[in-house]
Each structure stands twice: as C-alpha cells, then as structure tokens.
C-alpha cells in the first residue's frame, strides 16, 4: 500500500435503511469528534456513503484500510469506536457481524456469507464512496470510461462493445441494450433523447433507489456515453416521487458534473454537448412502463401506447429515444473500461454479467445483493440470505414484482436469469425477491397483487381494467370463505384473456401471480374452498387458533401475549384458547416457544 494506508477512512452508511436508525447523526458525531481530537495522530476522513446492502443490520460503519466493519452501531458507540479502534487499533467484538451460516463473528464484512458470494459491478462504489463527492467517484475510476469514449472511440465502437457484452436491460424485459442503441443510432431524425427510468415501482425492489442515492455519477456517466453513441444531446432522469434522497443526490451530482465540465456544451473539451434534467414522477406505477413514462415527461397522463412503432424510432415527443433502467446505466462505464470479454465471463452465455436482487420478506439477511446471472435461488435465499426467519419452513419465492410469479420449493435450484425464470412462469422483473414461509398464504398473496394492479391499471384496456377487478373479487371471495371450485377455472380463463388482450406489460403480465400460484399451490386454493381453512393463518375468516394439549408445556407466554385475554390456563398445564373472545391476531402463534399453538380452519371451532 502507498502512503494513503496511513489515512483512516471512516465510512458511515447513510442509505435509507441506516438513516432511519439515525446514521446521519452518527456520521456528524464522528466528523465533529475526530476533527479536533488531539489523541489522533493519523489523518482521518469521515464519509457518509450509500447503502451497504445489509440494511437489516444497520447502521453500518466501516473503517478502512483496516477493513473493520461494525453493524447496528448507535450514537453512543461513537466514542468507544474512536478510542478503541481508531486510536488503539483494537476491535470491538460486540459490534461485529454475526454470521448465521458460519456461526461466528466477522471482522471484515467481505468475509461474511452475505457478501462473499456477491460480485459487485453495478453496486461497485456504493458504500465505498461519498455520493456527493465527485472527486471520490473520480478516484474510483469515475469518468474514465467517458474519457476513453470521447477521445479514443467512435460512436460505432462504443455500440459494438455494448452489443458484444450482451448486456440486457435490467428493468425487467431483458432487451439487449446494444441492439437498442444501435437501432436508435440508425435513425436520421434529430433531436434524440436518452432517458433513465428511475420510476422503480415493483414492490420489494429498491436497487435503483440505492444506486441513485449511493452512486449517482455512474448513472450520469452511462447516460453521457449513450448520448455520444447515438448522437443525442439531452437526457432525462425520471425519478419516482417517493425517492426524495435519490432525487437530491442525483441533482447534486448533475450540478457538480456540470461545474467540472462532465456535462454541458463542450464536455472535457471534446466538443461533444450533453445535458441532463430530472423529472419528478407522479406516483403512478404504470409510469415505469416506457411509453407511459415518456407521456408523463411530456406533461400528459401516464398512459401507455401500443408499440407498433418502437420508442427507439418515435419515443419522447415522437423523436428517437433510448430508455434504460438505472441498473443498466450503472453497468455501462465498467463495460467500456474493462471490455466486453470481461463482462461475458461473468454470468451465463445468454445472460451475461450480474444482477442486483433485493432479498426481502421472511429471510434473515434482508438487503441488496449483486450476484452473477444464473446463481441459484437456493444460494441466494439460504447461503446469502441465511435462510428463513426463525428457521420456519420455506414455502415460496416471489420474483418480478406484480408481473412475476411465485416459485415453489421444487424449483429452488433454478438459475436466476431472464430465461430460466420465464420458463417456470415467473420473470426477472427488476429483481425483487420476496421470500415467503409457511405463514404466508398464497391465495392472499395472489389477492394482494390483484388489488395492487387493479389500483394501478391506468384503465385504458377493458381486459386489464375489468378483468383484474373481477379476478380480485373472486380471490377476495375465496379468502373470505365464499369460494367455489369452478372459480378456479374462471380465474384461469380470465387470466389467459387478460394476457393476450391487454396493450402494455402491466396488463399482459398481471395474471402471473394468480396463474403461478394456481399452478404450484392449487391445494392451498382447494383447502380454502372445500375445507374453509387457511393453513397459513392469514385469511382471518378461515382461521382459528387452538393449542395442542399434548404438546403444550404450560409456560403461559401465549396468555401473556394475548391482547384480549382469550387464553386461560394454569402454569405447567395445557392452556386453552377461547374462540369466542379470540380476535385472531396471531400473537400466541408467533410467541409459542415450541409450536403448540396450531392453526385450524373456520369449521374447527364450530
């Protein structure tokens, strides 16, 4: 190492998850206390970084170059970290990460199971740099790709590299990025536009937010490179209304890029002109669809249009437009710098590179992970995610947001890439992976998605507007105990109709959550319809709780947790739940230390 090894970097994670646990105050505290501390002989730099991914264990503080990572740090730990670790070089054991798989404490987080299976390209800088500091980005190879492109490559060469890398759009559909650029470049119609789709709306996905918050310059650099390749001079970033910090950091990055000549009239003296503008989304899910998004930028209601003519030919204001997702943009600079062959070595043949997944739901290590395409679902959930919370049985994984499907146990070995996920009825989507255990009801999940989609349907196509609403009604009936077996056939035929007769991807894929749960979890539907029983205990009309008298150890915890005093008994003897008082909150079920509280169907009590 060079001289900088004497310099200590204290990186405080200030992603949304950590911020909610006051990490910004921790950052300020470090900054204030280190700036005038006479005991400190080394130079210290305190940085507020983007999200480290493992949000469940935040706030995260990392100390470089010692590679020490502390988790769940609170403001009262700051003094101890300064005195023990920064001044005396010792490690504070209690703040280290406990690896659930390796069953030990870990000093350098990169050795933790959550991180060591990961391969970071799109997230390479996040958590390592200060997103508001342009110099920090530049020190980490920032804008090198832009320099290479502007001064050493022709637009065609740029497109060739991107095409050769086989990069596919990370927004969900997986369209080859290079081909998109190439097609757009071929149209002799100006002006052309470059758009970044930052309207991340799939429930359970937050990688785009994390990239925009934690490494905004990489998105900007990717977009300028595309602008150069297709001869466009203007780009828009459409960012979701809810993502305030992402907009703020992105705007700050645009301002500083402009100030230092990376955006504007004569970029780095090359003569090439390109500038960017942020458009704030309006909080409509359908605006994540490319044509609806463009309509929204134009100042219209965000309704999709039929794509007989592609956006690359007639997009924003009917001009040729390249629209890519945030994560796609973040992949561009490394591909330009390292070459297509480097990128192709990662992942699989048709699905090159990596994909960022947000691992959420009933999994121990919730957070953002970036793994090579083709990594198995099992590895993601169990090796990286650490398995299911409280070691309950795994039931399913939902991928692809409301357009995706539920994947059961039998497909746990599936490789996560565009093609394999589609083959089993789900899809990649934007990379949300929602883990479900035996207390998640598949009928209710299908109902939940139909409710979501019926709200978010823009209403243009009848099949989508009315069809989804009808599916929702049927599913609500089933979850309330009024379902009939023929409902299942109706759901299936409605689903197939909506798939073929709707205009945009929202409608076309809307039935997926229902169709996949019908395929893989039909028994659960039948259980709801015939036995009037919800085995997960979610559909309250079809749930009763009872205590298995032979198993109950008489600890009385359930009785203490019951908010309505519906559980009575004597210590060390079996307790009893009185169904006439029970509000079915499920507290007893979660609290019972040995699983003696059981879920019965609606009929059980009567």
């Amino acid at each position, binding site marked *: 190492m060079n001289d900088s090894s004497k310099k200590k970097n204290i990186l405080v994670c200030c992603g949304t998850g950590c911020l909610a646990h006051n990490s910004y105050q921790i950052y300020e505290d470090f900054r204030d206390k280190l700036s005038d501390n006479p005991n400190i002989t080394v130079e210290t730099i305190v940085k507020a970084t983007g999200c480290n991914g493992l949000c469940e264990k935040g706030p995260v503080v990392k100390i470089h170059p010692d590679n020490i990572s502390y988790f769940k740090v609170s403001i009262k730990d700051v003094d101890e970290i300064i005195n023990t670790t920064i001044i005396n070089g010792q490690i504070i054991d209690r703040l280290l990460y406990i690896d659930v798989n390796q069953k030990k404490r870990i000093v350098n987080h990169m050795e933790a199971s959550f991180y060591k299976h990961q391969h970071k390209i799109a997230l390479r800088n996040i958590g390592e740099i200060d997103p508001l500091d342009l110099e920090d980005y530049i020190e980490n190879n920032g804008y090198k790709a832009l320099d290479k492109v502007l001064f050493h490559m022709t637009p065609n060469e740029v497109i060739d590299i991107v095409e050769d890398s086989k990069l596919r759009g990370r927004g969900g559909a997986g369209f080859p990025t290079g081909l998109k650029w190439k097609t757009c470049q071929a149209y002799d119609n100006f002006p052309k536009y470059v758009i970044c789709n930052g309207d991340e709306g799939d*429930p359970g996905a937050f990688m785009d937010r994390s990239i925009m918050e934690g490494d905004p310059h990489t998105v900007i650099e990717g977009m300028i490179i595309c602008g150069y390749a297709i001869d466009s001079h203007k780009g828009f970033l459409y960012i979701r209304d809810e993502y305030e910090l992402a907009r703020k950091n992105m705007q700050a990055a645009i301002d500083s890029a402009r100030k230092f000549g990376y955006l504007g009239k004569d970029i780095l003296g090359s003569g090439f002109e390109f500038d960017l503008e942020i458009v704030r989304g309006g909080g*409509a899910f359908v605006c994540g669809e490319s044509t609806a998004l463009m309509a929204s930028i134009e100042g219209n209601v965000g309704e999709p249009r039929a794509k007989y003519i592609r956006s690359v030919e007639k997009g924003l204001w009917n001009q040729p437009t390249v629209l890519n997702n945030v994560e796609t943009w973040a992949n561009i600079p490394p591909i330009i710098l390292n070459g297509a062959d480097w990128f192709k070595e990662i992942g699989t043949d048709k699905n090159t590179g990596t994909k960022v997944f947000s691992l959420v739901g009933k999994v121990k290590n919730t957070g953002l992970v970036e793994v090579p395409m083709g990594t198995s679902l099992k590895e993601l959930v169990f090796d990286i995610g650490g398995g299911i919370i409280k070691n309950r049985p795994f039931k399913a994984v939902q991928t692809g947001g409301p357009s995706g499907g539920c994947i059961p146990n039998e497909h746990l070995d599936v490789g996560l890439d565009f093609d394999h996920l589609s083959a089993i009825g789900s899809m990649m989507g934007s990379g949300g992976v929602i883990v479900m255990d035996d207390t998640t009801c598949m009928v209710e*999940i299908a109902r939940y998605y139909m409710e979501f989609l019926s709200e978010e349907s823009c209403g243009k196509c009848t099949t989508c507007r009315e069809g989804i609403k009808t599916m929702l009604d049927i599913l609500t009936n089933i979850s309330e105990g009024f379902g009939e077996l023929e409902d299942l056939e109706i759901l299936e035929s409605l689903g197939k109709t909506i798939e073929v007769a709707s205009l945009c991807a929202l409608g076309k894929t809307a039935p997926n959550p229902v169709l996949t749960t019908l395929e893989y979890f039909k028994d659960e539907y039948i259980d709801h319809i015939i036995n009037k029983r919800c085995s997960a205990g979610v559909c309250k009309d079809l749930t009763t709780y009872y205590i298995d008298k032979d198993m109950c150890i008489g600890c009385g915890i359930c009785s203490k947790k019951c908010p309505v005093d519906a559980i009575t008994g004597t210590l060390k003897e079996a307790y009893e739940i009185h169904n006439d008082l029970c509000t079915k909150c499920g507290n007893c079920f979660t609290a019972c230390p040995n699983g003696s509280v059981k879920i019965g169907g609606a009929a059980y009590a009567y």
Partner: protein
Amino acid sequence: MDVLNSIEGDKMSNDIVYNYPKEKRFTLAILQDIQKEYGYIPREYMESTSHYLNIPLTDVYSLATFYKALSLKPKGKYAIKICNGTACHIRDSISILKELEDILGIKPGETTEDGLFSIELVNCIGACALAPVILINGKYYGHMTKEKVKALIDDLREVSTNE
C-alpha cells in the same frame, strides 16, 4: 386550518405556479410544488395553472386525479403513509393500518378533524429491510409494531400541543 387561511389570505402565493417555463411538460412539476406547499391541490391553483400553461382545465384535473402524489383533499399536518409493498404486506402491514385506524378514527384517504393526521396506504417505498415501515412527512419509521404506532402518535400529539 392554517393551510386554508394562508391560501385565502395571500393571493401572492399563486407565484408558485409561475416558477417554471411556460411549457406543458412542467404541468406535473407545478402541481407537485402546489401539493408540497399546501398538502393538496386547491381548485383555484388548478385554474391558474391552466391559464398559465394555456391548457384546458380538464387536462390539469385529469393529471391531478391520475397521479397518486397529488391530492384534491387536504392532508394532515402529519401525513402518515403506511407502506403496503409486498415485503411489508407479508410482515403484516395491514395490522399497523388497522391500529392507526383505531387510534385516529379515520380511514385511508381521510384526515382527522383537527387537521393533525391523515393516513394513506401506499405502494412500496423501497425500504423493505425496515418492513413493516411507515413514513411520516419524509421520515421513515421501521419495524413497526402496534405498540410502537401508539407511542409514536402520542409523541406527535404532544409535540404538536407544545408548539
């Protein structure tokens, strides 16, 4: 309510409409600024937006009703958003909503009579690791439980009385 008074008393605040170039594409941005300032889109602001940008009032209205970020009804001083993204949903966000409904006596989309609280069930806000999560005026409150909700509302009421 303060909000209403400030609109009636201060016509100059219409300036908020004129902060952008006179182009149709800024309609949404103008409406969002109004929403941010007043907590909803008052009719007269829709009218001045329509005049300024020279677009039909019906178009402004259709935008104001299409986009979820915009509201035609005033929101509370504490606008509470309960995330119902999938991750929050399967960690029982609905029970958090029910608790808020019970405590405040309002349903999603409504505002309490004193203008203090409004509740809304919203789509994923991308803070899934904090599930179930609620958002109050831009601040995230993670890993919510019924008990935490109650304490939080009590706190906010107290803060508000002391102001």
